């Protein structure tokens, strides 16, 4: 039953990702991406990585995609990218991607480790994850906060430049 659900979620994530390539309006692409992310959250939950599943919904769908949807509503520009969806790199892109995938699949097929015994779910429980996170990886946690501050300052600087140029 769980395996069936897992493949159901994985399949819907793949379908949503494929839809992102062909849909025309950015808002529909955003909705397809949200569907893909929610399916991935279901996959993570079925894999017993509940922390990641919660963060996937909270951060990705709740913050990043809402921000993206706001940007789409703000910038409702109808231009050439509506009538012609694909750039002139369509055929070279597909050819290069097929080559890339062939090389990657070849390498992966040889190097894939044998699936070990079922992973212990306790390692990814919230308590153990938090203890491991803040005991072993506290430096990364602090570096991430510095990165976020830098991103905020950079965003403000970008907007300031635009304001100055426009008077």
């Amino acid at each position, binding site marked *: 039953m769980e395996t069936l659900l897992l493949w159901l979620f994985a399949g819907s994530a793949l379908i949503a990702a494929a839809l992102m*390539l062909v849909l025309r309006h950015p808002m529909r692409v955003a909705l397809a991406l949200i569907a893909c992310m929610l399916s991935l959250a279901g996959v993570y939950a079925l894999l017993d990585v509940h922390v*990641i599943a919660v963060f*996937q919904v909270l951060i990705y769908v709740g913050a990043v995609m809402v921000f993206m949807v706001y*940007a789409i509503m703000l910038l409702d520009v109808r231009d050439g990218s509506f009538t*012609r969806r694909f750039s002139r*790199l369509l055929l070279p*892109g597909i050819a290069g991607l097929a080559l890339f995938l062939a090389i990657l699949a070849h390498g992966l097929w040889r190097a894939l480790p044998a699936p070990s015994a079922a992973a212990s779910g306790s*390692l990814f429980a919230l308590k153990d994850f938090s203890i491991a996170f803040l005991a072993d990886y506290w430096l990364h946690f602090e570096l991430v906060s510095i990165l976020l501050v830098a*991103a905020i300052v950079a*965003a403000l600087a970008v907007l300031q430049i635009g304001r100055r140029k426009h008077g």
Partner: protein
Amino acid sequence: MLVFVAFALFAFGLLGVIVRRNVLIMLMCMELMLNGVNLSLVSFAQQTASAAGAVLVFLIFVVATAEIAIAIPIVLLLVRRKHVMDLDAYADLKG
């Protein structure tokens, strides 16, 4: 076998960045690439039963948030100047 799903997600994202014209759609395809990497990290973390993969996924979340926080203002500035979202219109932005 979830690794192959992750590969497919990454490949779809990469193809979207290459072939689509709209700037916002290209940004969203970049997010899709990050999602594929996250899925592969989680499945590898499951196979090796280590918490490092899950921590790395958390760090990727933050990087994706920071990326969007920078990228959207840049797109806003660009579109405010030319009123197009077609990336070909910005081909003069070199050098």
